[in-house]
């Protein structure tokens, strides 16, 4: 009987014939922590009486959630990470380097077929390049740092077959919001999602990262895609590590299979206060907006900024509307500068902040005021997420955010199709 991608990777890494619902202890190819989770992990690592990490080259810590530090307490946590990274000789990314989920693939740390944990729920992002990567908490991170292993319940797989061709002005963010709205926030809980079909194949690797990034928002453990020629070329451009892509067997067993045709998909918007509260643009167009955000691990890549700049070029933000641009990495920001995109944003009236998580998680860089509406390219719109539980967060594509800040209200980006 055939296997899914998840079953194959967990079989290879555990040395057992792993099938859905088995529990295995498996070898990790890479382990990552960020500044919201590493402090507790370092404490747990020490409490476990561990002294050395299992392999410094296979570990990274990233300061991205509150970077640069806005508070004394945060500064102390950052310092603790710097000391640990220095002592253990692990890969370390400091303020301004970028968001962990951009850096880990961009810096070539992970390649197809790998098994990866990260102490951040959006670690599922690397599924886009055929990596079984999943979010864990700080104590699991500590166990991974110490032993290079972790126990896993082999997930069942929910296969999404995406047929058709996305229309102009409709992007991968619209597709994943639509899927989450359809299956709901716990539609794939405990499962691996596998995304396949011609609409996935047509996406760039950057567009695919957006899809896999939000697998957790449907409850999934990972958001896997097969490696095609685009994947292999992208990974070879970013990493020197050898790899063998892992494809699903044609006779693999799936817990659920759903097929979609996206040829008539419209721009989608997730409304407050849950990610699965999704509407087509027509139902929310006209809602006033005070702040826009383009960036984060979901949509802070160069392709996203090209799309936004195309709409914002030569135009100004509506009166009373703000726009925050948060590039996902130093490399992305440098590329955006070379292409003149940062200039376009600045001239339009945007504020450009340090590469990192930006205002997504409510720690700094643009906490909204009471009663304000924010439209963001991030992945969560929970009440209080951006630091104020009296604000309202809408989630959309970079194109929809760019169009909306020009009018000061939620607006259909297809008007700017050229």
């Amino acid at each position, binding site marked *: 009987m055939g296997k899914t991608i998840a079953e194959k990777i967990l079989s290879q890494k555990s040395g057992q014939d792993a099938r859905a619902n088995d529990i295995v202890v498996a070898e990790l190819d890479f382990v990552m922590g960020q500044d919201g989770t590493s402090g507790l992990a370092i404490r747990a690592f020490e409490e476990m009486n561990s002294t050395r990490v299992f392999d410094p080259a296979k570990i990274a810590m990233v300061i991205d959630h509150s970077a640069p530090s806005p508070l004394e307490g*945060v500064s102390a946590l950052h310092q603790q990470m710097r000391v640990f990274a220095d002592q253990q000789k692990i890969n370390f990314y400091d303020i301004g380097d970028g968001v962990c989920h951009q850096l880990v693939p961009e810096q070539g740390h992970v390649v197809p077929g790998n098994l990866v944990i990260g102490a951040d729920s959006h670690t599922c992002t690397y599924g886009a390049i055929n990596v079984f990567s999943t979010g864990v908490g700080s104590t699991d991170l500590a166990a991974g740092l110490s032993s290079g292993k972790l126990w896993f319940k082999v997930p069942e797989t929910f296969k999404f077959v995406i047929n058709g061709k996305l229309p102009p002005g409709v992007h991968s963010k619209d597709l994943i919001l639509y899927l989450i709205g359809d299956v709901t926030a716990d539609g794939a809980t405990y499962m691996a999602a596998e995304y396949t079909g011609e609409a996935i194949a047509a996406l760039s690797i950057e567009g695919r990262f957006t899809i896999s990034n939000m697998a957790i928002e449907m409850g999934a453990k990972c958001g896997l895609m097969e490696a095609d020629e685009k994947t292999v070329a992208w990974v070879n451009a970013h990493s020197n590590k050898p790899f063998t892509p892992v494809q699903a067997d044609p006779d693999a067993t799936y817990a659920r299979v759903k097929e979609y045709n996206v040829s008539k998909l419209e721009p989608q918007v997730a409304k407050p206060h849950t990610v699965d509260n999704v509407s087509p643009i027509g139902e929310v167009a006209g809602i006033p907006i005070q702040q826009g955000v383009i960036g984060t691990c979901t949509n802070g890549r160069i392709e996203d900024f090209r799309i936004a700049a195309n709409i914002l070029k030569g135009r100004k933000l509506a009166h009373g509307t703000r726009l925050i641009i948060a590039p996902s990495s130093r490399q992305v920001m440098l590329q955006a500068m070379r292409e003149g995109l940062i200039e376009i944003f600045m001239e339009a009236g945007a504020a450009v902040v340090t590469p990192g998580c930006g205002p997504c998680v409510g720690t700094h860089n643009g906490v909204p005021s009471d009663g304000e509406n924010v439209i963001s390219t991030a992945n969560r719109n929970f009440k209080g997420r951006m630091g104020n539980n009296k604000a309202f967060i809408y989630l959309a594509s970079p194109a929809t955010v760019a169009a909306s800040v020009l009018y000061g209200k939620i607006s259909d980006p297809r008007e700017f199709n050229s």
Partner: protein
Amino acid sequence: MNLQGKVHKFGNDVNTDYIISGRHKFKTLDMKELAKHVMEDLDPEFYNKIDRGDFIVAGSNFGCGSSREQAPLAIINADISAVIAKSFARIFYRNCINTGLPLIECDTDLINPGDALEIDLGAGILHNLTQNIDIPITPLPPVMLKILNDGGLVEHFKKYGGFNFD
């Protein structure tokens, strides 16, 4: 392990931002301090309503969202003895096992706010004292039960120097 307390009831999809907001969790590793803000965005007075040993009871998908381990730690440090829900999000589920917070999956429609419950974790029995009914609970898989019985993953590692499920 026998647990007894009263019920604080919440709905579906209680995410980890609601359990402990990002605006608090990044500031400190002092979990007693963070515990004062537990569930604050859903009920600003929640912390003051807790008596030692009480239960959080919710619908489906409890603990969805971010991987923050501060979520179960804030609940533990607020003197909640267990979380009871129809289903849990998976990272939160693991974090509870690893930090030693008991979690129970059952039909929570049979539990009302303010009900007094008694739970025998070893025997897998949940008794609703107020309504005088027994509610069946889903047993934990052996690997998770072993970590929980060892007192969490840190204690498991201290005991065995790594994973040991034999």
